[in-house]
C-alpha cells in the first residue's frame, strides 16, 4: 500500500476532525508534498460546506396547531411542585422498602407462599410517557437512577 493509499484511508476522518494531533501531523506533512491528496482533502471540505449550506425541511404547517391542541389537553403543575413531591415520596419509598425487606428476611420460610416478585404488581412505568419522563430526569443528572423510583411514585400518586 502506497503512502497515498494510507493517507486516503484517514482523510475523511481528518476532514471531520476525528484524528489525534499526532495523526493529523503525519497527514499534514504528507499533504504539503502531495497535490493529489491535498486536492482530495479540498473536495471533502467542499462537501462539508455543501452540507452546511442546505436548509432543513420544515414540518407541515398544520402540525403546530396539532401540537398545541395536544399539549393544552395535558396541563401540568410547575416543576417545583413535582420535585418536592418526588423527594417526599422517595423518602416514603425508602422507608417502605426497608420495612418490606425486613419482613421478608425475618419471616419464617413458607414454601407455599407466592414468590416475592409477585408481591409487586406490574406498573405502567414502561409506557413511552414514563420512559421519556425518566429520560428527562436522567439527562439532567445522568447518575441519578433513583429518579426512576421518584417518577414511578409520582405517577402512582397522580393515578
Amino acid at each position, binding site marked *: 500500500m502506497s503512502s497515498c493509499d494510507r493517507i486516503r484511508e484517514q482523510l*475523511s476522518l481528518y476532514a*471531520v476532525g476525528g484524528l489525534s494531533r499526532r495523526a493529523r501531523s503525519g497527514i499534514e506533512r504528507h499533504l504539503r508534498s502531495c497535490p493529489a491528496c491535498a486536492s482530495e482533502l479540498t473536495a471533502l471540505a467542499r462537501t462539508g460546506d455543501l452540507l452546511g*449550506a442546505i436548509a*432543513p425541511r420544515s414540518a407541515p404547517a398544520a402540525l403546530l396547531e396539532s401540537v398545541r391542541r395536544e399539549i393544552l389537553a395535558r396541563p*401540568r403543575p410547575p416543576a417545583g411542585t413535582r420535585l418536592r413531591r418526588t423527594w417526599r415520596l422517595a423518602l416514603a419509598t425508602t422507608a417502605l422498602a426497608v420495612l418490606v425487606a425486613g419482613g421478608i428476611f425475618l419471616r419464617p420460610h413458607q414454601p407455599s407462599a407466592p414468590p416475592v416478585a409477585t408481591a409487586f404488581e406490574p406498573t405502567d412505568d414502561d409506557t413511552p*410517557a414514563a420512559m421519556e419522563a425518566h429520560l428527562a430526569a436522567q439527562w439532567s443528572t445522568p447518575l441519578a437512577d433513583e429518579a426512576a423510583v421518584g417518577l414511578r411514585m409520582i405517577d402512582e400518586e397522580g393515578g
Partner: protein
Amino acid sequence: MNRESRTPSDLVARARAGDVVAFDALYLSCQAGIYSFIRSQVREEELAADLTQQTFVRAWESLPRLKEAGAFLGWLHRIAANLVRDEVKSGRARLEVIASEMADDPLATPSTQPGPEEAAISAGLQEAVWAAIAELSADQRGVVVMHHLEDMSVAEIARALGVRPGTVMSRLARAREALRKRLSGYLEDSDVKL
C-alpha cells in the same frame, strides 16, 4: 443562526413552568431540525409528521424534569430518536428512504428562514444534496442532519443517540467520503457558489 439563539434558555425555563406560548416558540425554532432528522430516518412522510408531533408532546410532558435548559435540543433529539427506534422495532416504519422522495417531499417545505449560506445555493443543488444524503445508511443520515443542519457537536449527538463520540465521528467520516463521491460533479463545478 446559531443553536443558542434558536433555543434560548429563558424560553425553555418558561415552557418548563407551563408557558404554552414559550413552548410554541420552542416548537417553531426546533421543528425543522427535528422533522428533518425524523424524515431522514423513516420513509413515510405522514409517519414523520406524526413522530414529530409525538416528540414535542412528550417533551412538553417531561420538560418539568429537564434541569439543564441548555441541553434542550439534544434532549429533544433523544426523544425523537427513541420514537423512531420504537417505530422501526414495531415494524410500522421503514428505514429505507428513497432519494427522490426525500428530495421532493410534498408535505415538507424548505425552512422558512434560510440563513445567508442556505440562500447561496440553488434549489436544484439542495435537492441533489438531499438525494445524496438519502442514499446513505440511516445511521449516517441521522448524524449528518444533526451535525450539519443543526450544528450539534459530536458530544451532543453521541449523548442524544446513546453512542460513543468515536462512533459519531466515524459515521460522519464515512458519510463525508460517500457524499464526496456522489456529489463529485457539483464539487468540480466552479460555478457552484458555496
